């Protein structure tokens, strides 16, 4: 036998191969899916879009960077280190994911805001969103709440007086659909003015984005393009998106039948009502980009179905019966809150059990009951 060069061996636990994939690639996919919406909002809102994204993106990136610097503190080893050494040590723990995750959050957060939001509103919402919803929990992968949703709600609730859901440029000259001075979206129209105020809104306009609303949420066709891309790339779980949209549509259909049969509303067109609810507000955007955030959703299949189901039910109930016109943000946060419960090891399982099926049946039954009672006796719907 000839002599071989000796081998320098390395021991590591199996498996020795990995799928060609990474969390950063998933984040990049989301950014790519958001790109058409981003271009759309820059075309329509121009400098306003630049203001919102120009503030939200640096704020979130910087907050994450400061967090990484604090977290990457050098462990105490009894020696004195210069600031430069400490800085270089800390910066080593900055990974691509530390840049991409806040970028995704900032983009989604910006899309959820109307273009007219004041600059300090955008800044405070972004900062509160990333710090209180993500960084205090330990950064990427540890947060309970969706940072974009938290930031959006803080801004929308605290700075609503400075917001006007300004009409888009291509409707300039034509009469605005809703009185702009009230500063509402089409959804707040139905909330304050009843069905009659939205009865003549064209569904096609809603689908193409010829309406007022938050920057990224208005153009449904581009959201669907992004959704298709994400589904093809398997960057999101279709179970969550489709369950959420399905629950929402089915419950809205039940509600519209109930409204039509109750005779409370004059000239009620059930098809138009379902289509209007489906195409207005942030429902599709939330279903595609916010609810599907893997960090804040459960990890098992039954858990994900139940999570999306609960979020869908909450959205419908909040939209129909609460004083807030838009229920997507709240329902996403409430569903996020249920994630640890759905993942609790004692009852979480990766397969369906009879108990889980019963629970789902119970939820659906209870929500339908609430819907019917609320519509017949609540007196909110007009």
């Amino acid at each position, binding site marked *: 036998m000839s002599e071989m060069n000796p081998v320098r061996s390395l*021991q590591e636990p199996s498996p020795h191969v*990995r799928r060609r994939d990474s969390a950063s690639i998933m984040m990049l996919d989301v950014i790519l899916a958001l790109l058409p919406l981003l271009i759309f909002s820059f075309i329509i809102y121009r400098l306003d879009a630049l203001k919102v994204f120009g503030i939200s993106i640096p704020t979130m990136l910087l907050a994450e960077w400061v967090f990484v610097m604090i977290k990457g503190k050098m462990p105490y080893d009894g020696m004195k280190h210069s600031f430069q050494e400490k800085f270089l040590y800390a910066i080593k723990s900055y990974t691509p994911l530390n840049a991409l995750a806040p970028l995704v959050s900032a983009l989604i957060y910006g899309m959820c805001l109307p273009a007219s939001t004041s600059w300090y509103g955008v800044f405070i919402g972004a900062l509160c969103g990333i710090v209180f919803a993500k960084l205090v929990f330990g950064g990427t992968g540890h947060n309970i709440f969706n940072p974009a949703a938290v930031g959006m709600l803080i801004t929308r609730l605290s700075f609503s007086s400075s917001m006007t859901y300004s009409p888009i440029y291509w409707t300039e000259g034509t009469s605005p659909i809703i009185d702009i001075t009230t500063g509402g979206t089409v959804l707040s129209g139905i909330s304050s003015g009843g069905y009659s105020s939205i009865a003549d809104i064209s569904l096609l306009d809603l689908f193409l984005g010829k309406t007022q609303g938050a920057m990224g949420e208005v153009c449904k066709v581009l959201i669907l393009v992004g959704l298709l891309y994400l589904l093809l790339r398997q960057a999101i779980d279709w179970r969550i998106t489709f369950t959420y949209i399905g629950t929402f549509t089915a419950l809205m259909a039940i509600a519209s039948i109930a409204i039509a049969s109750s005779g409370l509303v004059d000239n009620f067109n059930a098809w138009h009502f379902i289509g209007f609810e489906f195409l207005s507000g942030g429902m599709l955007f939330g279903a595609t980009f916010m609810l599907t955030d893997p960090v804040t959703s459960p990890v098992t299949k039954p858990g994900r179905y139940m999570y999306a189901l609960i979020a869908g039910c909450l959205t419908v109930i909040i939209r129909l019966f609460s004083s807030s016109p838009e229920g997507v943000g709240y329902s996403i946060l409430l569903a996020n809150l249920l994630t640890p419960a759905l993942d609790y090891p004692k009852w979480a399982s990766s397969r369906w059990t009879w108990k889980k099926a019963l629970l789902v049946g119970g939820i659906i039954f209870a929500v339908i009951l609430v819907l019917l009672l609320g519509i017949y006796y609540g007196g909110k719907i007009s």
Partner: protein
Amino acid sequence: MIAKARHIELPAVLLSHQELEEAPLPLFVFLAGTNGRCASYTLDVKEGDHVKIGDKLGMRKGPFFEQPIISTVSGTYLGIEKHLHHTGKTCDFLKIQNDFQDELSSLCHERSEEEIASLTKDDVLNIMKDMALVGLGGSSFPSYVKLQGEHDIHTIVINGVECEPSLASDHRLMLEHPHEIIEGVKYLMKAVGAKEGKICAKWIYKDLESTFSSALAGEEGSGVSYCQVYNFYPQGWEVACIKSATGIEVESGHLPAEYGVLEYNVATIYSLYLAIRYGTPLLERYVQIHGDGVVNPKFFKVRIGTPIQDLVALCGGYTDSGKKKRLIFGGPMMGNTVNSDDVICSPTVTSLLVLDEAPYKADPCVRCGSCVYSCPTHLMPVLIASAVKAGDKAKVKSLHPERCVECGLCAYACTSHINVTEFVRRAKRIAKL
């Protein structure tokens, strides 16, 4: 990617070499005294004794069983040397100088058809014990233990699936020895009274399908059949293979025998055939030396007891890439690394995969759920990993890590490149405490 992992994609450099070469007989053959399962042994030979193929040189002592050490070569016994077992343990090996005569011991006696026809289940069990037959799928668990139960067996499943990517040893064995395997199945079926024997292999092996359809011609009444199973990983896992072959789902914590099924690896059946028909031990196995760390990957027919270094030298040695090498025994998914190449080919060695080091940087878990979707035993690896990190023993136990088969799919599928499987292994140890 939030998706179940079912196929293992390998880089093209790792795809295996399929042409067979006969490795020259080694000058010295090493037989394991102790091994991964047996911690002690007794010897019946002295240094300088002449031994023949099939001679019993001593007894290995396991936790609850004993098995003879059987020579796979004829020559002179030289003494004990320390080498590595492929599991990474340092073990005592009996060194035998080969005289290249391949004389058969008088202990090996050929059985006639009539003798074989009169063998009972206990006889087969004793042959398995005497010839030290072990599970050659990799477990090296004594084969006779499976026969000891009192359950009625209706089906024998022969596992030739070899689901790990790039492995081809069982495939080669089935191509070369279809008749022997079929005979072995028939012996075992007769012994346990089974009505069906199913030889399972992946459907992508069209050459096996034609080989076995011609080999099984005229065997219609025997109950032996060739069964094509899916090409998923881990299809070769006992439970998955039985499910694909018979439709029976073996619950975790139960034996296949409780469902009337016995499952053996094809190589085990081949060695059983040799033991019953000719009374000889298994002498040769097909061993792959492959991966991007060796110069010329090759596929050898190897006498058991050959040092793996000889085979690597035949492949032209290791590549000179300046990187550290991972010496992996088994496939890329479940194989274990050893810290030196001073390893002896035991019967369960079928592949040495030499890979250049390729470190994966772990990101924080984003809870994508791919590990939960991929787990063939329906565990929740991400929750197990977080419970292990938190040191929560009660939580770890409630997640049943003991069901894990360590297939490695959770780590393979992990979008954050975390070695989830290692966390689950740790959880298994925590749960046992």
